[in-house]
């Protein structure tokens, strides 16, 4: 009997073990949900993230690589010293590429899905314009890149590379659609942007100007065929049309203003304080010489010098960039700015368009461009007048020389902007490669990132042969 009892209790215990095992499935699955991350967000939180990311990427690697390539800044240490000599590896553009695809465009793609589903016209339009802007910047650096099959996650693990010219057309179409969507905004729309739009506070009309400014840039890039030295008047005309529909003053400029808090600081400020590998005012090695760019500004008595360059900074500090770009300064409340596109640029685009055959007076635009650039930096009106009265105030009478002069001035106005590099590539103001140029000539394009070469076989036909010179971007041929 006793044995039987024991036997029964043993069976009971065993049964109990199995019962414990067959718990509710949700007991397990619920445990695996991340309580600190939402499954759904609003368009507003995506928009802010996209804008900040775009500003940070553009003002980061893009700005640094481009400004070193065209000698607006000098890499003096570590990796930047290699870049200074045009020595880039396929690893170097990884962050720039990754930041644009993952931080900017993927989230922009999510915004388009979200706003499209909800029928929020303004968010949808803004998302399209930001996508167009991103595409234009990426194409200018790499040419052909994945877009039509990109951002799908597991949906397409090897997006094909789209042709660079076709992508420019896509960007144009996105701008038009964006403008239409913003203009179609209705009071019944679910959500409308406000302070979450850190560029324009949700004002749709400003976005329309921004889209036109981008269109003007896209068209002017295609207004000249280098190989045949031919102006494409139709493109110049389009550029001028959109320039006219664009910004009315420097108050309209598209830009991202960074913050005073350490984790909100502008990209150049972060680089200069955390890395200090790039100089603006002085070249470390030949101290106390100014950089060639500074030398030219000083030579031309350019009043922007003291705003763009902080020549009081220690020569080895790796700083020397004016507070406008890399605030917060130690003594000023300024916050750093990354300009996406400006009224000044639009004026220079207009001048170039006129010089390439569009109807307009180049000199007027040129003067307005210089004035806008100087005014924005805070140059006093009298100094502007003095400069304009000087040799650089008047465009050369020879159109081909005037284009280069216009480009050089525009390049100053676009100080630290990747667009300045594009200008040099198109208009080619005189620039000799830096002295220790083991890498050879000044780059005309970015290398494809190693990760894309390794992981996306679609890139191989291009990336295996792409160098810093070829294939040139379609408008740089």
């Amino acid at each position, binding site marked *: 009997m006793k044995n039987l009892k024991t036997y029964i209790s043993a069976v009971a215990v065993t049964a109990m*073990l199995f019962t414990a*095992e067959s718990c509710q499935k949700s007991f397990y699955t619920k445990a695996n949900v991340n309580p*600190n991350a939402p*499954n759904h967000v609003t368009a507003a939180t995506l928009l802010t993230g996209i804008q900040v990311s775009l500003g940070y990427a553009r003002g980061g690697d893009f700005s640094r690589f481009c400004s070193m390539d065209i000698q607006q800044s000098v890499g003096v240490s570590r990796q930047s010293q290699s870049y200074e000599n045009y020595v880039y590896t396929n690893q170097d553009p990884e962050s720039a590429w*990754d930041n644009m695809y993952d*931080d900017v465009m993927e989230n922009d793609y999510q915004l388009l899905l979200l706003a499209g589903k909800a029928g929020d016209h303004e968010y949808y339009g803004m998302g399209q314009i930001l996508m167009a802007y991103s595409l234009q910047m990426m194409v200018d650096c790499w040419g052909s890149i994945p877009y039509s099959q990109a951002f799908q996650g597991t949906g397409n693990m090897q997006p094909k590379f789209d042709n660079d010219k076709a992508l420019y057309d896509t960007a144009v179409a996105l701008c038009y659609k964006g403008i239409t969507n913003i203009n179609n905004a209705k009071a019944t729309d679910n959500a409308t942007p406000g302070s979450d739009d850190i560029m324009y506070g949700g004002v749709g009309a400003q976005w329309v100007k921004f889209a036109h400014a981008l269109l003007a840039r896209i068209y002017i890039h295609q207004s000249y065929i280098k190989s045949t030295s031919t102006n494409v008047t139709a493109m110049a005309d389009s550029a001028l049309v959109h320039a006219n529909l664009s910004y009315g003053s420097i108050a309209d400029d598209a830009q991202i203003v960074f913050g005073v*808090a350490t984790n909100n600081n502008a990209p150049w400020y972060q680089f200069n304080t955390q890395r200090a590998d790039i100089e603006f005012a002085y070249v470390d090695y030949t101290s106390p010489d100014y950089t060639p760019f500074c030398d030219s500004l000083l030579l031309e008595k350019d009043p922007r010098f003291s705003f763009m360059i902080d020549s009081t900074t220690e020569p080895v500090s790796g700083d020397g960039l004016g507070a406008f770009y890399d605030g917060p300064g130690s003594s000023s409340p300024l916050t750093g700015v990354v300009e996406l596109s400006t009224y000044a640029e639009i004026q220079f685009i207009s001048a170039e368009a006129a010089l390439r055959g569009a109807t307009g007076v180049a000199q007027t635009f040129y003067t307005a461009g210089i004035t806008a650039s100087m005014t924005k930096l805070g140059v006093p009106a009298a100094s502007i007048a003095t400069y304009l009265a000087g040799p650089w105030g008047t465009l050369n009478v020879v159109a081909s020389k005037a284009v280069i002069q216009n480009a050089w001035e525009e390049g100053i106005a676009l100080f630290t902007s990747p667009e300045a590099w594009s200008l040099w590539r198109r208009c080619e103001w005189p620039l000799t490669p830096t002295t220790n140029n*083991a890498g050879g000539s000044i780059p005309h394009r970015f290398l494809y990132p190693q990760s894309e070469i390794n992981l996306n076989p679609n890139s191989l036909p291009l990336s295996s042969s792409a160098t810093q010179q070829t294939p040139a971007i379609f408008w740089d041929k």
Partner: protein
Amino acid sequence: MKQIVRLATVLLGMVLCTSLYAQSRVITGTVKDQDGKPLPFLAVQVKGTTIGTYTDTAGKFTLTVDQTAKAVTLSYPGMKNQEVAITDNMTITMSNDALGLDEVVVGAVGISYEKKSLGYAAQTVGSDELNKSGTGNMMSELEGKVSGLSVVNSAGDPGAGTFINLRGITSLTGNNQPLIVVDGIPLDNSINNYDPTGQGALASGANGNLTGGAQPTNRGLDINPSDIDNITVLKGPAATALYGLQAANGAIVINTKKGSKNSDGSLGIEFNSSLTWSTVNKLPAEQNTYAQGDAGQWSGPPTGGGRKFSWGPAIDTMYWTGTPNAYFTGGNSMVGAHTAHTGAAVTPFNPYDFFTTGIANDNNIAFSGGTDKSSFRMSLGNLSQTGVIPNSDYRKTTFTATGQTALSKRLSVSAGINYVNSITDKVQQGSNISSVMLGLLRTPPTFDNSRGQSGTVDSTAYMLPGTGAQRDYRGGPGYDNPYWTVNENPFTSAVNRVYGFGQVNYHLADWADLTYRVGGDAYSQDDKNAYNIGSNAFPAGAIFINDYFNSQFNSDILLTLKRKFSDKLNGTLILGQNFFQLNNSVRSMQGNAFVIPGFFDMSNATSYNTGEAEAEKRTSALYFDLQLAYANQLYLTITGRDETTSTLAASNDNFFYPSVSLGWVFTEPLKLSTNKTFSLGKLRLSYADVGKDAPIQGLQNYYHSASILDGFTTGVTFPFNGMAGYQYGNPQFVLGNAGLTPENTTSIEAGLDLYFFQNRVNLSATYYNETSNNVILQVPVPYSTGFGAQLANAGEITNNGIELTLNATPVKTKSGFQWDISVNWSHNTNEVVKLAPGVNELFIAGFQGGAIEALPGKSFGQIYGTDYVHVNPNDPSSPLLIDDIPGDPGYGYPIVGSKSSALANTLPNWIGGLTNTFSYKGINLGVVMTVREGGSIWDGTIGAMEYFGTAAQTDNRNSSALFAGDMGHLDGSGNVVHYTAGNPNALGAGAANSTHEATNEYYWQNVGNSFTGPTSASIYDASYIRISQINLGYDLPSRICRKAHFTKITLTVFANNPVLWTKYPGVDPETSLAGPANGQGLDYFNNPGTKSYGLRLNLGL
């Protein structure tokens, strides 16, 4: 060992069922060991029957037996089985078993197995071997003492992490360290870490990529070795299959000391105290010939171009001039000998004066005792250690209490609780501009970081008077003066931890026992790291608080059924159920920009970031373990475990894995047990299949607070100017995967145990072959998908290897002299067979120019980066290509390539340990040597020192060298071509180089270093032979002890790591930048290792 086994015996005594009808009588007895101590929990069985019982805690037993019973048999682990004729009130003395084969090994889930029966490798390390170093680090004490166990101490910092691994890497991105089990309860061994200047929270965890920050601790270090009775290392999946997915990398099974009744009933007191002095054991060599400056010109703080370098003039040609200032006590600048001067000659400073002598004081006291039914042990331990780097320390206080009692003949309970409080003051390390070694090793020989002071310096060494700005060799942005770092960048980590177990055993019947064991482990780790205003990493000041909380709950119910099928065949079946729950959370706060200098408090910041992360995991399992023993020679064990885990989708969250092992004592039929030469041989065979589940929260995608950074800056995190922002992914850039399945490792193991000369020599050899499939990794996807990676089952890794253990007693004389040798040797071949399709490399840790990666077809942990260009670019053994472009600054030097590839293997070919012990009349001398053969480290430290001009080898800057190789260069398409008069791009390489080129600043800064040049320039063999421990102990004769009222007095002097032979040019090659994480093999300004000397006193009362 014995004490543990007592507990185990309670659980699983060999009490077999029998009939109760015969006439009976009651017999009693007492069982003692050779020293006269009572033996509790010893199995007593009436011969020829299945009637039996255990002894109580006083070693007494009472048994009701049949009138016909003639004798009892007694068996106890580690002792010879005995048969004793039944008398009234027997007193039986058990003798130790020379062969040690009746020893019991505690296997998975606390099940004990006779060592003889094991079909797989397991090795036990006793208490005596675990308390030698005075560092209180249980893991590092295992080094060299177990074959197949690799131990890497990350740095000599107090409380620095220790990476342990058994039988190689099986997981690419998950945990590769064995499960630590204390008294049957899994103990968390996480790495909780935050690297504010580099990887942020990504520096945490098994796959953490720590490149800067402070050296992390793995929480397994919290255990106090003084409380450990023994450690059983279960090496392979067959041994650990019952533990389930947590133990797929093997297990370190720790049994803590338990109390027992003293023979005279008194309270037993044990006390030990050790005092240890440690110094740095090895540092990179520096040049002290050339001054600060560039291109041969002196330049120094606060202004002057090129002052970041040590490429200045020869120091012995220079004099101080002017008046001393805040930077220089010798004068405010340097001039050459040709200049008129009145100052003193410049002499180099020794930057290594920075290091100091660390002192560790370890004290432990334990009380134990009991009655016939109950026993207890309580202990208190305190370790207080200062490091060789000023202001670094580690203070650990532990308290433990365990007790057990028999409530009735059937019911017994036991419980134990451990409390740990540890506080570590850590030091900044690695690629971090506050890193101590980084600031120290880049300092030119003419700059005195201490400003003429020694020992504990005052603030004038690192702070300029008046301004409070930093005094460093650059006089501005750059790297922190190491004295600044240790004073102004404090990092304190405080841990409070409780872990313990409770257990109930119910003896259901002679053939059935029920055990319920429940336990848990909960700790908080509160980290606070601040940077004063003026720190180069955070010029405005910053503070980081990370509070980690981790709790684990574990329960096991075990039903043990035993049956004797015949005289020869015994069987035991164990059925069990396990439930495990893990919760952890991190609360992070970052305060930016201080208002008041030197006030390290959140309230002093002007902007904030916060974050929280919580994770939860539940698993449950049903398992069985069937042991069959036939005729004392064949032992078959079959196990199975059916597991459910919360980390997988409901549709596939359940999986089963089996193991089979066979032990065959093939000498048993030969009746060799009394043979003087060859006593016993055993063959082991096993097969096991174990699983590992997916990462927590890995199934779906979420939005998370937005952030953006690039490779150079810390970037922007949200909120941004008060605005919220979110981004898509899991985590950022990673795609979740709802279809994840468990990782799976199958293992085949074969082994041989041979015992010679009555156990004077025993040899154990094991071969294993493991294949891990469906290994989960973050499969990189092209960024153009919008993501960087996707979690997926894709990898396959194989490990196979040999483990050898030899124990021998070459000399044993009648006079009492004995010499014991113990050798452990192991070789493991690891291959990452495949990653995901199309994935040719997987980054594990490190930098772009010095990464640790996994690549298909190669062993895990390849150093990946750039190399010099070879004449055949695809053949690294072909000659180097030497630049032949006339007028090129690189002419005559090797050409630095831009393509990255796998350059070297970081895993050793073999590791070994050799312990020699000599004892004579109470004097014991032990010498432990450890060897690592093969495997490389990327020493980026040397690379940067070469670039900056502080490395010893840059002393050749005024000489030249012939760079062997063929002349040529690469054309625009990357083809190897050479320059001829007629054709600048003639195909192929040209003639061999015959011209000498200067080994000057240009060479070192562009070609010869890995900092800006090729990764391969800094790869070094990390092989070493070291004497890791020497102990000389003396047990005072017992008559002296008795006079002093002690039962035992032992005095020991010891040395840790006194001798190291290695060709590695950096710090001690046992080093890890990433800490105790998977990415081993990186040295980038790692903090140095130490050697130490100490004294220890052990007292027993």
